């Protein structure tokens, strides 16, 4: 790589805008018992689904007269399940005060349910200076690239974007992406594209031998082998009419 002759030393500190992909924890109830039961059932089968992702409590759906949930307890519960809640959004003044006491930040007036949460803990110096990204790309996270075989029991999730896998996805492994999935090797495990409902997501592989494919929640299993035209061959999987899995040779 060409280098400048006299590289200026990097400053000790730089400020840049960033968009964090995170998880929204949408509260429909503030009741301790109800939350506790649901958390337990939700995570019973997959206690280590999350791996330390940032999370925000979305309070917009709570009834106006709802009491404040036990924020400290909620945060602790989520933390023990691999989520890192750091803020509440769309909270009433009362809820916000309680959340603040529990050490959470307040993000108010955030549009509910964007694909990626814009979480700027502090006001940025010059928000206008940032060139507005094209609308189609605004919610896209960087493509995730995996170059080691995914083995039985392993699961990778590309939040907000695509995933490219350069090694085999073995039986029992799971690839999940909010966008499309590209596997340039045998796909023998499960592939779930459009995990947050993007019906235009697709799955591509150079060797289709999957156990299950799913796009935006519409899935197909392969108890019987797929057509000879695509079995163990390059194929693309897409959704037609928003409800029909189509598998075509590539």
């Amino acid at each position, binding site marked *: 790589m060409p280098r400048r002759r006299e590289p200026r030393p990097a400053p000790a500190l730089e400020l840049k805008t960033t968009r964090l992909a995170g998880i929204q924890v949408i509260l429909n109830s503030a009741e301790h018992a109800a939350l506790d039961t649901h958390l337990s059932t939700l995570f019973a089968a997959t206690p280590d689904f999350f791996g330390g992702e940032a999370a925000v409590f979305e309070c917009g759906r709570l009834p106006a007269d709802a009491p404040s949930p036990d924020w400290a307890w909620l945060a602790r519960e989520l933390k023990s399940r691999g989520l890192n809640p750091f803020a509440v959004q769309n909270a009433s003044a009362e809820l916000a005060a309680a959340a603040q006491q529990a050490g959470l930040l307040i993000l108010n007036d955030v549009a509910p349910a964007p694909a990626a949460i814009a979480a700027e803990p502090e006001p940025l110096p010059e928000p206008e200076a940032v060139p507005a990204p094209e609308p189609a790309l605004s919610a896209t996270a960087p493509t995730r690239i995996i170059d080691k*075989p995914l*083995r039985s*029991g392993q699961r990778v999730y590309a939040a907000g974007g695509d995933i490219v896998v350069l090694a085999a996805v*073995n039986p*029992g492994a799971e690839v999940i992406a909010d966008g499309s999935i590209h596997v340039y090797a045998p796909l023998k495990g499960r592939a779930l594209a459009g995990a947050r409902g993007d019906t235009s997501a697709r799955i591509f592989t150079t060797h289709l031998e999957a156990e299950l494919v799913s796009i935006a929640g519409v899935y197909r299993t392969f108890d019987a082998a797929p057509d000879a035209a695509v079995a163990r061959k390059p194929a693309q999987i897409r959704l037609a009419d928003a409800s029909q899995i189509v598998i075509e040779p590539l």
Partner: protein
Amino acid sequence: MTTIITVTSGKGGVGKTTTSASIASGLALRGFKTAVIDFDVGLRNLDLIMGCERRVVYDFVNVIQGDANLHQALIKDKHCDNLFVLPASQTRDKDALTEEGVEKVLKELEHQGFDYIVCDSPAGIEHGAVMALTFADEAIVVTNPEVSSVRDSDRILGIIQSKSRRAIEGREPVKEHLLVTRYSPKRAHEGEMLTYTDIQELLRIPLLGVIPESEAVLQASNQGIPAIHQKGTPVADAYQDAIGRFLGEEHPLRFVEYEKPGLIKRLFGGK
């Protein structure tokens, strides 16, 4: 430099303990000071396979908990001078294995100048198995030529890649070896079993060896003599080859091709 080798598989009954005993014995026969540790706390078997069950006084858990020192618990092998067995406890369960405790014992063995420490992992992917692979430098993944065993080996490889110290600390990854055991060339040839190439294609790790299915193994374990000592049997030869390859030698694969018995052989017997 001490090298810690974990013998693991995920699935039970595939030959981990037989392999641990033979690999440890083979390394010792080649002059390396070797210890073999039974991590299967609660279901100890290694002492039986090594034929030292009547000499167990203290065990691995005793050492971890400080009830005995390592010197008291290590049992010298009958067949090799520089091989020592650290048996598992029969009366405890796997929770008795703490990460600090295991590390302390391994460090002490290193301090005593052992060249190789072979960790015989329990089946499964729970605490005991994780403890056995946490400190591994190299892993021998024992796999039978059947789909469920291959699947479980795949799973345990994933765990090695995420839970071993080398992985957590971002050091050079654990060196993985595939050892196919209980292989029957005839049944693989006839399509009843996966072939070793099928297995390797799925697991994608280097092949250390193929150990043929043999009655000699059962005989060896019942006598408490590791199979590698059954001189002249294909099993012993295959283990010797595997140890050679482990140490960087090149040996062609043996006992993997099926030869149709000729007429004379069929008429006059022979195996």
